[in-house]
């Protein structure tokens, strides 16, 4: 079997904030009735987490779950256990009108950390990144410069950006430019 590698193989950049590609991540798109008991049972079995509320991320012992739209969730688990998680969820949603698809290799994930990480993101997305408007456990789908992306806040104050793998280099490059030394705007 071929060796799986992430889009930029863990590329990093140190500017006035740190930008790093986080490497392989298991990601599963789930669509269906988020309010159904089959959905909450399947999500619980796969991740240990509850179904998140609108624009929230929940986490459990086996992974995290992000709210993507009124009928869509993103389940984030270890890359190695993604097939097993898909199987658990597919089984749990058998008979329901639902979709479970492994999209791990179609995406790239970046972490932006450091005191000024909010400024790095705010320069690229039309989103209110004020501390009282966006924080840990929040997710926002938007755009990073010219491409669609989702951003969520981690407990340690860092942020993670998910985008399509095909635009990984572009997103890394614009994050680098935004975090370039001398470009700190000190807004947030």
């Amino acid at each position: 079997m071929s060796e799986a590698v992430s889009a930029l193989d863990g590329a990093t950049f140190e500017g006035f904030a740190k930008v790093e590609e986080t490497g392989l991540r298991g990601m599963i798109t789930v669509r269906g009735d988020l309010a159904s008991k089959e959905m909450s049972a399947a999500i619980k079995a796969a991740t240990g987490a509850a179904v998140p509320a609108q624009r929230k991320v929940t986490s459990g012992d086996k992974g995290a779950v992000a709210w993507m739209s009124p009928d869509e969730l993103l389940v984030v688990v270890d890359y190695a256990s993604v097939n097993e998680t898909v199987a658990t969820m597919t089984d749990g949603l058998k008979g329901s009108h639902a979709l479970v698809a492994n999209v791990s290799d179609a995406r790239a994930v970046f972490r932006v950390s450091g005191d000024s990480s909010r400024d790095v993101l705010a320069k690229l997305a039309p989103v209110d990144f004020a501390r009282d408007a966006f924080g840990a456990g929040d997710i926002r789908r938007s755009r990073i410069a010219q491409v669609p992306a989702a951003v969520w806040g981690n407990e340690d104050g860092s942020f993670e950006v998910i985008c399509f793998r095909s635009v990984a280099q572009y997103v890394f490059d614009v994050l680098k430019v935004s975090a370039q030394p001398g470009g700190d705007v000190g807004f947030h």
Partner: protein
Amino acid sequence: MLTLQCPYCGVWAEETELHAEGEAHLKRFGPGSDDADFESYLFMRENPKGVHFERWRHSNGCGKFFHAARCTMTLEVFGTYPAQTLEPPQDIKDKISAKQPGWSWRDFS
């Protein structure tokens, strides 16, 4: 810049996160329909100076289509509402009437 609240994800999205998708509440005339109905379905669009109903898509966001009621002259937004409807909800119509008494748009008023 236009800012609309997406009724599905609750985000106040500015224009670059959205895509304009034309006029709202079109009735489709497909194969087998009258030529005049088909022509008007394909080509005839409202272009008012005033109250207007549009379809938008939260394309750089949750991806859903929704409707918006706004004024093309003042750029005031009266409200947004889900796309699973054949006409604007009463509360939106009431808001428009409060601001612009006597308004009408196609069959709505």
